[in-house]
């Protein structure tokens, strides 16, 4: 058997692939955070809760309405986005003129509230959720073992990430958004409805977390704490990538997923701190992040 770095090739490629899969979730989630921070300047600590909400909505759609995975993949993000829009309209909006800290505290409180609510109603152990029948099973080759569903997650996440990047960087509505971030008053003077634009942005960011939640439901346990377990890593990804940089969030998500996957093989004890070590090093050498603009 071919050995690389003291381990059989299939094991190494397997670990690389797993890193890529986890990276897909990191990328999707940090992308939503970056979009929200980049355009609203809100540090959205509720992002993990919206991710959890996406997974639970998918479970509830199946449990109470009999809607399967594909239906949930479409509906759950819409519902989560709607919840996000309501939150922005009724509460978050009032904090835009205050210090960033208030937005952070508000979204953090919101996350605790949502988590506590679901724990109270559904308990801590979570709910079972299966991958769609067509995607059960494993592809096994000489090089690699991969569940079909996880392979699909990588592709879905890539498409979503690139789509979002194109939407913001290459379309007219994206141009409005970027302009509104630079100077909201001026853009409003041109007749663009800026408040609506901001609501939609927040809702879109939340919907992205919702999609990630639905995608994660068959892989991880659907539980109230699934978001808070992830959110700190996601923030590390955003910081390494450069706060507000969309491309940075995507690339760093995949990159750190792979680094973490490899750490689990070579030095498992360090797996849960590898990302933070990288964060510390990046902050020392490039305080604005790998892809951030130095001001």
């Amino acid at each position: 058997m071919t050995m690389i770095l003291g381990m059989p090739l299939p094991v190494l490629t397997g670990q690389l692939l797993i890193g890529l899969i986890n990276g897909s979730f990191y990328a999707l989630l940090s992308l939503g955070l970056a979009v929200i921070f980049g355009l609203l300047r809100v540090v959205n600590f509720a992002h993990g809760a919206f991710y959890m909400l996406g997974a639970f909505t998918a479970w509830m759609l199946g449990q109470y309405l009999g809607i399967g995975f594909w239906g949930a993949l479409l509906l759950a993000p819409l519902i989560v986005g709607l919840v996000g829009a309501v939150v922005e309209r009724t509460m978050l909006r009032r904090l835009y003129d205050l210090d960033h800290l208030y937005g952070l505290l508000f979204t953090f409180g919101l996350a605790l509230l949502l988590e506590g609510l679901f724990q109270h109603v559904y308990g801590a152990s979570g709910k079972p959720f299966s991958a769609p029948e067509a995607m059960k099973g494993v592809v096994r080759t000489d090089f690699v073992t991969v569940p079909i569903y996880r392979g699909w997650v990588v592709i879905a996440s890539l498409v979503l990430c690139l789509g979002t990047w194109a939407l913001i960087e290459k379309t007219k509505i994206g141009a409005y958004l970027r302009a509104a971030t630079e100077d909201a008053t001026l853009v409003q003077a041109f007749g663009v409805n800026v408040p609506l634009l901001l609501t939609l942005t927040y809702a879109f960011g939340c919907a992205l977390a919702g999609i990630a939640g639905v995608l994660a439901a068959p892989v991880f346990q659907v539980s109230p704490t699934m978001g808070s377990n992830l959110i700190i890593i996601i923030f590390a990804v955003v910081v390494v990538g450069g706060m507000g940089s969309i491309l940075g969030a995507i690339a760093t998500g995949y990159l750190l997923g792979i680094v973490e996957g490899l750490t689990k093989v070579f030095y498992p004890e360090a797996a849960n701190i590898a990302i933070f070590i990288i964060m510390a090093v990046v902050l020392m050498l490039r305080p604005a992040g790998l892809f951030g603009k130095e001001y």
Partner: protein
Amino acid sequence: MTKLNKAALACLFSVGLATGAQAEPYRLGVLTDMSGMNFDLSGKGSEVAARMAVEDFGGTLLGEDVEVIVGDHQNKPDVGSTLARRWIDEENVVAIVDLPTSSVALAVQEITRQSDTALLISTGGSSELTGASCSPSTAQWTWDTYALANGTGRAMTLEGDKNWFFLTVDYTFGHALEADTTAAVEAAGGSIVGKVTHPRETSDFSSYLLQAQASGADVIALANSSGDTMTALKQAEEFGITAAGQDIAGMLLFLTDVHGVGLEIAQNLTLTTAFYWDMDDDTRAWSQRFAERMDGKMPTMVHAGVYSAVLNYLKAAEASGQATSGSQVMETMRGMDIDDFFNRNAYLRKDGRVVHDMYLVQVKTPEESKGPWDYYKVLRTIPGDEAFRSVEQSACPLLDD
């Protein structure tokens, strides 16, 4: 959260009472995890079970009222210790009950040893609690890592699973479970081919599972608990581990864990438990009463253990004529018959170990199960003296005299 508020209210209320110069009620403190991953298997259900026991005993001890108060230790030893110390010093708590998370249980045991307060451990499972760290005022009621390791490890090795690979959670409990299982497997003629440790509350086990798969072991043993076990089981299914011929051994599985992952994934797992609700009329009768107060959720072994521990504690305290010395209550209990629907052929040993029958069970397939909570088939009853560590094997100094 509401329970926390209630506990806080109870504390406030007790301060009011104390200044009123009336006799203080005896309090039993259920110290558990009300907000983390042990909430379903222990948490709220342990509180309910303790309250049921106090009601069934009549609500008074030695002529005074008995109250149940609840605290959330958040699985942190420092939080648990602080709460325990306050309860004992200021709130007339005479017994502390349940204690999920072994590291917290070990910390609290040091406090109850000093104050000679009764400690009734139901969820905390490290065999260390009745080993080198044993205390004369402790009873470890339900299970320990030795009994599970011995029950499941031995049975599976004898069935032909000779080579074992461990996925071990990286704290006291995981290490104890791994060490105890290793001993049981090796004694039965098996061997350990590898292991990997993971942090608590890991969300992705696939890297570890692939390493386990590559090891070529016959069986992958999950030396972890609740959320971690469930995630590992789910992802093992996803990667087709059992389909490819390797067995999975869940070293610690609670009924709520099986409920959480579903039978599709948990089916055919062999595990060791101290209690299953659907064994006979007595277990069913108590479990039905429990379920009525828990929105239909059936009790885990630790819930039944909390009830049995509290009820027997109250009987022993009444018989010994005092409740301030935990070690004296335990001494009285050693001379008592503590058999009930939970405890079969039971007695309390000097090291604090409650020795009773354990059960080797298998998880039913979805076809075999008639509905929610109909999950286990009992394969074998393991007599207490075979299930638990013998006196000779224990490092507890209390056993020496």
